[in-house]
C-alpha cells in the first residue's frame, strides 16, 4: 500500500493562543511538499503539533497516516507508526552516546526479540555517516552535545536515514547550514526519496528547494495555507518575496499568535 498522510482542518493552540487555524494537506508516498512562509506564520507549530510536542494542544481536526489516527497516539507511537520530524532545535543529551541512542530508536521500532545485531547496526551507521560526510567519532559523542548547528542538522538526517520513516517532516533543516552542508543534507534527503515515502519540507528560503525539488509548494500565513502551487510558486517567491501574496489576499500582518506591537 502506498503511503498516505492526511491532515484535515487541523487547529492547535499554545498556552491558549490559537496558532494553527485549520490546515488541510494530503501527502502521498513519493511526493515532496514544501511549506514556505515568513517567520511567525505557524510553520514550525505545524511540525511540532504533528509530532505531538507537549506544549501544543490540538483543538480540532484530524491527522492520519495510512488511515491510522495519529492524534490518538503518544509521541513515540507516532514515530513508530512512521512519522519522522527533523527538528529545528534538536535537544542535547549528555551521557547518552549518539550510537546508543540510535540503536535504542531502531530497536524500539523493530520490537522485542527482533533487535538489530550490533555488527549490522555499526555497519549501517558507519555507511550513512560516510554519506553525510560526518566524522566517525560522532558515533561515540554524546547526543548533540557540543555539536555545531550544521552538525546537529546532519545528525537529524542521519537519524532519518537509519529509521527509514514513511513520512518525513523537515523543519527548517537549512537554517544555519553553509552551502556545502546544505548540499550534503539535501543529497541525504534525495537519497531517501521513494514511492513509499512522503516529505514535508518547511523552510522560508527557496534556496533549499534548489537542492530538494518539491512537487507541491504551499504558502503559510496567519496559521493557514493561503496559497498552493507547483515548483514555479517557490521560484516566484524567491524573485518577488511574499508581498504580492499578501496584497492579493488582502493580508496586512501575516504572523499569528504574536503580541501586537505598541
Amino acid at each position, binding site marked *: 500500500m502506498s503511503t498516505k498522510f492526511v491532515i484535515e482542518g487541523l487547529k492547535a493552540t499554545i498556552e491558549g493562543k490559537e496558532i494553527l487555524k485549520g490546515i488541510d494537506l494530503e501527502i502521498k508516498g513519493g511526493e515532496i511538499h514544501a511549506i514556505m512562509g515568513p517567520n511567525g506564520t505557524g510553520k514550525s507549530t505545524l511540525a511540532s503539533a504533528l509530532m505531538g510536542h507537549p506544549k501544543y494542544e490540538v483543538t480540532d481536526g484530524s491527522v492520519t497516516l495510512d488511515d491510522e489516527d495519529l492524534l490518538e497516539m503518544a*509521541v*513515540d507511537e507516532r*514515530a*513508530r507508526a512512521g512519522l519522522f520530524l527533523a527538528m529545528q532545535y*534538536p*535537544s542535547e*543529551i*549528555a551521557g*547518552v552516546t549518539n550510537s546508543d*541512542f540510535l540503536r535504542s530508536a531502531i530497536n524500539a521500532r523493530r520490537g522485542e526479540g527482533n533487535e538489530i545485531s550490533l555488527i549490522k547496526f555499526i555497519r549501517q551507521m558507519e555507511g550513512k555517516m560516510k554519506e553525510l560526510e560526518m566524522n566517525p567519532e560522532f558515533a561515540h559523542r554524546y547526543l548533540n552535545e557540543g555539536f555545531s548547528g550544521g552538525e546537529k542538522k546532519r545528525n537529524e538526517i542521519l537519524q532519518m536515514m537509519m529509521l527509514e520513516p514513511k513520512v518525513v517532516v523537515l523543519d527548517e533543516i537549512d537554517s544555519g547550514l553553509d552551502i556545502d552542508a546544505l548540499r550534503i543534507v539535501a543529497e541525504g534527503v534525495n537519497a531517501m526519496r521513494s514511492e513509499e515515502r512522503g516529505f514535508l519540507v518547511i523552510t522560508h528560503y527557496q534556496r533549499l528547494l534548489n537542492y530538494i525539488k518539491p512537487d507541491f509548494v504551499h504558502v503559510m500565513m496567519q496559521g493557514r495555507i493561503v496559497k498552493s502551487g507547483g515548483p514555479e510558486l517557490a521560484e516566484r517567491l524567491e524573485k518577488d518575496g511574499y508581498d504580492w501574496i499578501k496584497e492579493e489576499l488582502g493580508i496586512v500582518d501575516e504572523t499569528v499568535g504574536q503580541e501586537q506591537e505598541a
Partner: protein
Amino acid sequence: MTTQTVLPVEASALTAFSERSSEPAWLKEKRLQALELAGQLELPKLEKTRIDRWNLQNYGAPGAGAQPGQELPDSISAYVDPAHNDNLIVQRNSGAVVARLSKELSAQGVIFTDLETAAKEHGELVQKYLSSVIPAGENQLTALHHAIWNGGVFLYVPQGVEIEIPLQAVFLVDDADAVFAPHVLVVAESNSRVTYVDNYISGELNSPLVHNGAVEVIVKPGAKVQYATVHHLGSQITDLTYRRALVENDGSIEWIVGEMSGGDSMSETLSVLKGNGSLSDAKVIAVGSGSQRLNYTTKATHYGKSSESQMITRAVMREEATAIINGITKIEKGATKANGEQTEKVLMLSKKARGDANPILLIDEDDVKAGHAASVGQVNQEQIYYLMSRGISREQAERLIIYGFLAPVVSDIPLKQLQDQLQALVERKLGQ
C-alpha cells in the same frame, strides 16, 4: 552524669562480649572508653537533616545473632565468585564465613583478615592505626562505632608491594539481633599499591537495624589506594558510614562509592590530604527511592602543598526520596598550590522527590585553585520529547537520560566488574 538518652549497649554487655571474644586488654579498654564518650557526645550536626529523628536505637546486641556456618549464602553469589577469588573476605552477621589470602600475597607480607583476628595476631599494628583517622571522640556516632564495632577487615600492604588484582570483601547481615558495625582498616605502606572492593548487603530482616560503620585508610608516602564500596542494604536498615583517608606525601586515594541502600542513609567520605603532592579523587553515585532521607557528604581537607582533590557526586531521586548532597573543599593556610574541584548534581524523577546540593569552599590560603559546580533539577521534558520522537518509549527515554546523568561517574570506574554491578543495582533501584 550525662543527660544523654540511653545508649543502645550497656558497658557490662560490652565487657562480656570483649572477654568472650578473647580480645586484648587494650581493645576492651578502648571500647569502654568509647562507650563512655558516646554517653557524653552529641549526634553530628548534618546539613538540613534531622538525624535525631531517624531510627538510631536498633543496634542489636554484641555477639548475638545467628552464627554463620561455612557455607556461603546464595544471596552473595551475585557479588563474588568464591571459586575464582583467592583474596576474599565474607562476613555474615559480623562472623567470618570466608577469609582467604593467596599464598603469593601472604608471602609478600600482605595481611588481609577480619579485624578481630588482626587485633590478636597483629596487635601492634592495629592498636597503632585503629581510630587514628576517625577518633572516637568526634561525635556520638563515631564513639558508638568504636565501642561496638564488630566484624570488618584489616588490610595491610607492606612497603613497595604492588597488588594488581582487587581484594574483595562482602558484609552480609540477615539477622537484626546482631550488631552490624564493621570496621575496615587499610594501611598502605610507602610506595605500595592496592585496590579494595566491598559490598554491604542485607537479607530479610524481621525488625529494623542500624548499620554504624567506619572505614579508615592510611596512605603512606607514595602509596596508591583505590577504595570501592557499594552499599545496598535493605529499607529496614539505617545506614550510617564514616569513610576517611589520611594521605601522606605523594600518596593517592581514589574513592568509588555507590550509595544504593534502601533506608535512611548518612555518609561522609573524607580525604585528609596531609602530605605535599597528595591526591584524592572521590566519585559517588546515589539512587534514592520510597521515602528515604539521605545525606551524603564528600570532603577534602588540604594541608599539603600542591595537594589535589576531585569530587563528583551524582544522585537520582525518585518517588518521595530526599537527598542532601554536600561537597566540602577545605584548604588550610600553608597548603600553597593546592587544587580542589567538586561537582554535585541531583536529578529528580518525580515532583515529590527533593534534592539539595551544597558546594562549600573553605579556603584559608591565597595561592590555590578551587572550583565547584552544583545543580538540582527535574528530568528535562524537551529531552524526553526528543527521544520519544524517535520511537523510544517514555520509560526507555527516562532510563537513557538517567544513565546519561550517571555516566560521567560510572564510565570512569576503573573496574569493569564494579561498573556492571553498579549499573545493575541502579537499574534495580530504579525499578526497571
